[in-house]
């Protein structure tokens, strides 16, 4: 073979490899949904819309977007979804590459860090002419939760918070009357239910003589070991009137006694009263299978409970999260919102605002996913108020406490990382560590995080 030929063939191979390497498209954040969408025809405004819904609510959101696209031939909204954490990774990468989405959904407490990175547009001017996106049309704490340093950066979609679901059959069997949907039960009422609903292998409850704590077949309530553990702590800590971050945002302002007191209550449910299981992982399944009689969870669980009711006759009810410490009621909560990441195309901005206005007016559809609409017209509609199991959550809306907005949100609160909150929660709930020592450690860690620029 001639040397020349070899050279040319090698060169050809290299060129092919190079072309193949360079031509590989940048992967869109979502698999299926993005792939199915055909290219938009000329003269149509295309909006890239990213969200982190991956459960059944992903289908609900897709259906809503499909309907919008069908009704608006001049606009094409491309919805891409993947779990929140990788979604934000993709968002950061896309932003630094100058190809941020036009609309990004997130949770209000996450806003501050993206605003701090300069990735989200302030909305005050953009929505100035909107007849729909105005403060008076939204629930006040939902609207205010989307402000960072006094400026609006997000349009609220919904709110959610913890509530208390219960298994009607388990209550009936134990002879315990079910709680009313409002107001929240107090500490004594809650402990009474908890003891009578914890049943051992001999059928005796924790309220009876001779109860065998080593052979419990039904616990009264779940005990979170994931981030929901510190969500619950946040509810209780706020019922005691606690604060977490100093006014200047530079240090931890935790009231260590109150913080420890709130944890102690949760820890004692597992280790002292034995009314909640240790090291639990699958709360909804344990609740549906009757291993716990009550479940602390959010309204997003409602569709699953409705399905269980339809398929196997599971009887459930809901009440507000308990008011353990007797002061003004408070409950952990969050929500979803829409943000407009930095982009300067006024055409797309106008189209995005129009889409968000339509979303607000049509958020009743979204409410089927269990979420509570932040748009008053929908929230107050007969149709929504009548939906099953929503009443205690609606009643909790004004008392919902968001985590403080801080640019260091992830470093303090992220659920899939060794953040001070996660470490504190898991040390206390899984290792039975001393709450007083753990809150002190966590507070020091939070101060250290906030002190670094």
């Amino acid at each position, binding site marked *: 073979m001639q040397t020349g030929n*070899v050279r040319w063939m090698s060169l050809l191979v290299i060129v092919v490899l190079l072309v193949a390497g360079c031509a590989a498209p940048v992967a869109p954040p979502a698999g299926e949904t993005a792939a199915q969408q055909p290219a938009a025809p000329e003269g149509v405004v295309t909006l890239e819309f990213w969200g982190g819904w991956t459960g059944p609510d992903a289908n609900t959101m897709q259906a809503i977007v499909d309907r919008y696209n069908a009704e608006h031939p001049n606009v094409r909204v491309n919805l891409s979804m993947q779990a929140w954490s990788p979604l934000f990774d993709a968002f950061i990468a896309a932003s630094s590459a100058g190809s941020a989405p036009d609309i990004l959904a997130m949770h209000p407490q996450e806003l501050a860090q993206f605003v701090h990175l300069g990735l989200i547009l302030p909305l005050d001017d953009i929505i100035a002419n909107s007849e729909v996106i105005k403060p008076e049309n939204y629930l006040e704490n939902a609207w205010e939760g989307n402000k960072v340093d006094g400026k609006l950066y997000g349009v609220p979609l919904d709110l959610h918070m913890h509530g208390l679901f219960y298994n009607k059959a388990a209550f009936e069997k134990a002879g315990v009357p079910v709680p009313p949907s409002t107001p929240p039960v107090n500490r004594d009422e809650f402990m009474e239910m908890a003891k009578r609903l914890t049943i051992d292998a001999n059928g005796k409850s924790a309220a009876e003589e001779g109860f065998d704590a080593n052979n419990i077949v039904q616990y009264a309530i779940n005990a979170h070991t994931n981030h929901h553990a510190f969500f619950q702590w946040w509810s209780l800590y706020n019922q005691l009137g606690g604060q977490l971050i100093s006014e200047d945002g530079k240090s931890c302002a935790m009231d260590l006694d109150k913080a420890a007191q709130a944890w102690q209550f949760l820890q004692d449910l597992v280790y002292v009263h034995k009314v909640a299981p240790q090291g639990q992982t699958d709360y909804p399944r344990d609740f549906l299978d009757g291993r716990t009689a009550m479940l602390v969870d959010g309204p997003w669980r409602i569709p699953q409970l409705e399905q269980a009711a339809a398929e196997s006759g599971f009887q459930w009810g809901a009440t507000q999260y308990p008011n353990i410490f007797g002061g003004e009621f408070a409950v952990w909560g969050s929500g979803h919102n829409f943000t407009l990441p930095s982009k300067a195309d006024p055409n797309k901005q106008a189209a995005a605002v129009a889409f968000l206005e339509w979303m607000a007016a049509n958020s009743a559809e979204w409410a089927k996913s269990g979420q509570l609409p932040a748009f008053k017209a929908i929230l107050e509609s007969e149709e929504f108020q009548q939906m099953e199991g929503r009443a205690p959550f609606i009643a909790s809306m004004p008392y919902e406490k968001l985590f403080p907005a801080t640019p260091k949100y992830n470093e303090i609160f992220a659920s899939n*990382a060794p953040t001070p909150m996660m470490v504190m929660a898991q040390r206390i709930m899984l290792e039975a560590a001393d709450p007083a020592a753990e809150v002190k450690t966590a507070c020091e860690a939070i101060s250290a995080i906030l002190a670094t620029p």
Partner: protein
Amino acid sequence: MRILAPAGFQARTAARKRIHWTPFLFLAPYLFLFVSLRLLPSLIGLTISFTNWSAVGVPQWVGLANYQALFIDPRFRDALTNTVIFTAMAVPALVGLGLAFALFLNQPHQGRGLGRVAVFTPYVIMPTVVGVLWTWILEKDFGLLNVLLGRQIPWLVSPSWAMLGLVLAAVWSMVGYNTVLFLAGLQDIPAELYEAARIDGAGAWRSFWSLTLPLLAPTAFLVLMLTIINTFQVFDLVYVMTSGGPGTSTLTMVQYVYTTAFQFFKFGYGSAVAMVMFVILVIVALIQTRAYRRGLESIY
């Protein structure tokens, strides 16, 4: 075509006149990928580790500040300790079981083909899938392992068991690769040697100790080196199964790099962690290479 030039001055002047491009052309695809996907990103990473870059905006030079912070960061210490523990637990199991499976599957018996497939299959399953699978196997109340053991070990929800749970999953998914490497090593040993040993009166144990093991040493070294490097960089399984928890009990180095860079947007600090890890691995590799050379000298 003259590839092998005769040694000496004349050849060298000839080579100077005319460079042989062909070998480079064959190397080019690899070199291109190596430089663009390995070398350049590593150098960029090294540069970023001296800045406070947050993925967007202009990075500011902070000198050694990230490295100084590492020394007093309790999370970094956790990550380093956990990674060493994970490696110390997984490597002996992976190398030992890999060798044991290879010896077993090298014997002429009925289940050989099936056994080879069964041992290697987990290796080709995506780590994320392995992670989800093992999360179920290790489930406390209904997980397969606890059902088989007749106990309720809180594998992934207890800080004292979680690491062992991860090691089990890692060994299951990675041992097939080592087995294949050992098998290849075993099949490279000429059968005549065993025959000669048998004639000299050596039993099975004798030929294993005096023939198989010494002749397998180069393979074993390769396997050991790859296994240490791979386990030290464990990420996917940790990410899927525990996210470093409960608490910090399974936080590993790469998980911490990911966390600081991609979740906390501290790319400078994350890069510094990655650089420290790189240095540790280079040192380990150097020690191993040296020990290997000395070992070879003592064998031959």
